[in-house]
């Protein structure tokens, strides 16, 4: 099909809406996507203080249905999916047979099926891998006619409440009753919505799956609220970097193992004990801290940002690691980065040197997140 040609950029369901708002469209993950509207800095800071609406319809929405779907998925992810309660979400990793990270994803147990959100750039490969690895009794449904909008920021809850979204059943909770990493089915008038309290900015917020044909109505209704502005990919990237959240294809890929990527939390205890996921032997041999290299956060000493691809060097100038994401933090007003460094240098406070365009730049290993998370977590009893 011509749609699958890599030289043809696809259009988002909201393409004309983005353009009408002055969105500057750039190629990303095979789509034309808005990188910014009024400017990355302003959009970033707006999201940290108010609420931003992000179109993430390029991401893959996939349902896995059938008896034993959770157990089957566990063969290729290290998260405890079979223990996931109805309406709960888990962040997990799609692992190759050698344990390399093929993608990171969110898995929701809807009660009827598993609903997965995977990265846009990897979705077709992921789906091929699911089809190859999962038993034929498990049905895979790629929800290509669903758009996905993320409403993120401290005012996301009060904004969403204004839309009068109802639960599917009168006695079920409304969207703002959800806690972080919970999800449910809802109705907005006669439009069905799947809403989760999750996101990738470090802020409280929601991801809303909506039929593509109704996505413009929903986006317009949200952006008509005083709390909400449309936010582009540029700010999405700087927000997730401040939140310490890795970006697939940059901060991790198929050559990286979970412990190296500093994603130990994604290796559920029960699954480590079972040791029955793809690449488990190789992955668990590094657990918890036996990898040679590790993803860390960096503060840059000075004002000049360091960028993806810059080398981490030793005192003789030999490359010992690499920067995988780097930019200027609008919240902190200074440059921050993520890099892979030898584990011996991964301790917070360690001074390291990055070489960029032939110049040494001094950096300090920093705790992540760089900016504290502001999730709406369920209170601990």
């Amino acid at each position: 099909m011509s749609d699958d040609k890599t030289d043809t950029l696809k259009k988002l369901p909201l393409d004309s809406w983005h353009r009408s708002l002055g969105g500057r469209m750039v190629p990303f993950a095979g789509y034309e996507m808005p990188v910014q509207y009024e400017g990355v800095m302003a959009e970033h800071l707006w999201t940290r203080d108010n609420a931003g609406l992000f179109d993430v319809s390029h991401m893959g929405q996939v349902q896995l249905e059938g008896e034993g779907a959770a157990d089957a998925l566990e063969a290729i992810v290290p998260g405890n999916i079979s223990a996931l309660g109805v309406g709960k979400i888990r962040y997990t990793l799609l692992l190759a047979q050698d344990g390399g990270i093929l993608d990171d994803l969110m898995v929701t147990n809807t009660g009827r099926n598993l609903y997965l959100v995977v990265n846009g750039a990897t979705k077709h490969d992921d789906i091929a891998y699911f089809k190859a690895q999962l038993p034929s009794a498990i049905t895979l449904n790629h929800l290509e006619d669903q758009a996905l909008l993320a409403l993120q920021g401290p005012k996301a809850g009060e904004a969403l409440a204004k839309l009068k979204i109802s639960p599917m059943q009168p006695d079920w909770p409304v969207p703002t009753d959800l806690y972080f990493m919970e999800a449910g089915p809802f109705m907005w008038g006669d439009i069905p919505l799947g809403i989760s309290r999750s996101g990738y900015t470090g802020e409280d917020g929601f991801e809303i799956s909506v039929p593509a044909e109704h996505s413009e109505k929903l986006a317009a209704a949200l952006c008509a609220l005083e709390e909400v502005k449309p936010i582009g990919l540029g700010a999405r990237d700087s927000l997730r970097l401040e939140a310490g959240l890795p970006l697939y294809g940059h901060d991790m890929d198929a050559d990286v193992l979970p412990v190296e990527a500093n994603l130990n939390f994604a290796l559920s205890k029960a699954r480590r004990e079972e040791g029955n996921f793809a690449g488990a032997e190789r992955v668990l041999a590094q657990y918890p801290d036996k990898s040679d290299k590790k993803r860390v956060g960096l503060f840059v000493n000075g004002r000049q940002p360091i960028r993806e691809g810059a080398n981490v060097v030793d005192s003789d100038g030999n490359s010992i690691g690499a920067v995988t994401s780097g930019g200027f933090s609008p919240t902190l007003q200074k440059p921050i980065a993520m890099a892979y460094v030898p584990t011996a240098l991964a301790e917070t406070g360690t001074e390291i040197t990055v070489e960029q365009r032939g110049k040494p730049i001094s950096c300090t290993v920093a705790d992540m997140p760089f900016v504290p998370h502001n999730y709406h977590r369920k209170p601990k009893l």
Partner: protein
Amino acid sequence: MSRYFTDEHEWVDVEGETATVGITDYAQEQLGDIVFVETPETGAELAQGDDAAVVESVKAASDVYAAVSGTVVEVNDALEDEPALVNSSAEEDGWFFRVTLSDKSELDDLMDEKAYKAFVDGL
């Protein structure tokens, strides 16, 4: 004083043998919020087309090429503390560096304001 433009969106003000170089308002608009400018060292010998400076926005780094050949005689120190000057005043206070021109004939290949405007309108 004459102002010239390049198709890399730089402007060049020429006064006698000295040229002041910066990026155009169109360029700063495209780059977005500028958070750092790496200027050349005073005394550096630049050949036309060399990497002369780097402009860093929140998201990306962009090279600024030497619009003309010459020796750098002054850089805009104000950009160190206030890189956003390039956004607020790209074609005046946000200048990058000054050179003593080594080959004034290079100016013949640059655009005047009218030609640059037509170039930008065509993008």
